């Protein structure tokens, strides 16, 4: 095992550095925008490390995609997919789901 900080704590450290030291020092709009994007990327990685949702396995996803492409759509496909995509969004952009409430 590695010493602390953990992977999660390292991501948090970089996120904090970008928001409190780099961002306020930037004047260039393009760099500012890309720094915000980079912070967002770190947030996604952090939430992915934190999650304990099991979700669909790689093989299940591949099989489902193959069946749907072939026109052999399982009866519960829509419900399974909605949960699968919601789980992805809870990692990539949790606020997005609030737009559907």
């Amino acid at each position: 095992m590695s010493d602390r900080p953990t992977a999660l704590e390292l991501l948090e450290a970089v996120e904090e550095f970008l928001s409190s030291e780099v961002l306020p020092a930037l004047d260039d709009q393009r760099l500012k925008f890309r720094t915000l994007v980079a912070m967002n990327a770190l947030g996604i990685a952090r939430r992915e490390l934190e999650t304990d949702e099991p979700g669909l396995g790689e093989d299940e996803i591949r099989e489902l995609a193959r069946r749907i492409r072939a026109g052999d759509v399982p009866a519960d496909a829509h419900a399974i997919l909605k949960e699968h995509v919601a789980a992805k969004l809870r990692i990539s952009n949790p606020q997005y789901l609030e737009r559907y409430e």
Partner: protein
Amino acid sequence: MHLLAGGASKEAWAVDAEGSALLVRRASRGVIHAATLSLEDEFHVLEAAAEAGVKVPRPVAYLGELGGREAFAMERVEGETIGRRIARNPPPGLDVQLADELAKIHAIPPERLPFLGSGDILERFAGELDSVGDPHPAIEYGLWWLREHRPAPLPDVVTHGDFRIGNVVVSEGGLEYLLDWEFAHLSDPREDLAWPLVRAWRFGADDRRLGGVGEVAPYLARYAERTGRTVSEEELYWLEVLGNVKWATGCLTQCRRHLTGLDRSVEYAVLGRMAAEMEYELLYLIESR
């Protein structure tokens, strides 16, 4: 001369030459969709649009290759292009102004732009999805649903191909210019009509279904008045689902520019995770009927 913020798929350079404020648009490495126009063809589309009276920055010259990549020069215009800001405070009349421009674009004679392609849109996106490599069952579901519910097509017209807030320049007086013609092609006119309705292009103002800036009914009414083509909101529903398939796939292919090493960028990288937003929306849209 300096590089401007914005456009994820092309470079934009501010250049001042002989007293004119120019914008030099130059190719990046790689494209979002396989059918993207070359800069030379995009320049010809811009010229045709200008001739047709569409509000576009004045085309100046096609420059050939600059440092190994194609470029052209056009008038550098002032105004607001940031979708979030426009959706927060949309100028009155923008809804019908969008319809006015679309009517002019759709009236450009296709023979004026013989290089524009058409083709089966569902096959195109299935092909693009295959090029991504990783499986995306929600997008497959969208494509399946679209195949099952396909409406009879309208005859092809010249379409802008990326007609939405974010590609228009706006002032307090309303719409000033239409930008980003790289996806122009021949298609069902409803493809352009429905594209600004896609939730991703409402920039957070979800309740204003037309691009976060207005309602759909006055926009369609003006379009009908200008073109004689009566399109119902109901007809746009299928194309709205298609729009979400399109942009989900676009996010994934842009992300591959980063992953393959073609054009490394954190912006492209995160787009791979944004595709899930359009996947959720297309499932929601399909369920809502």
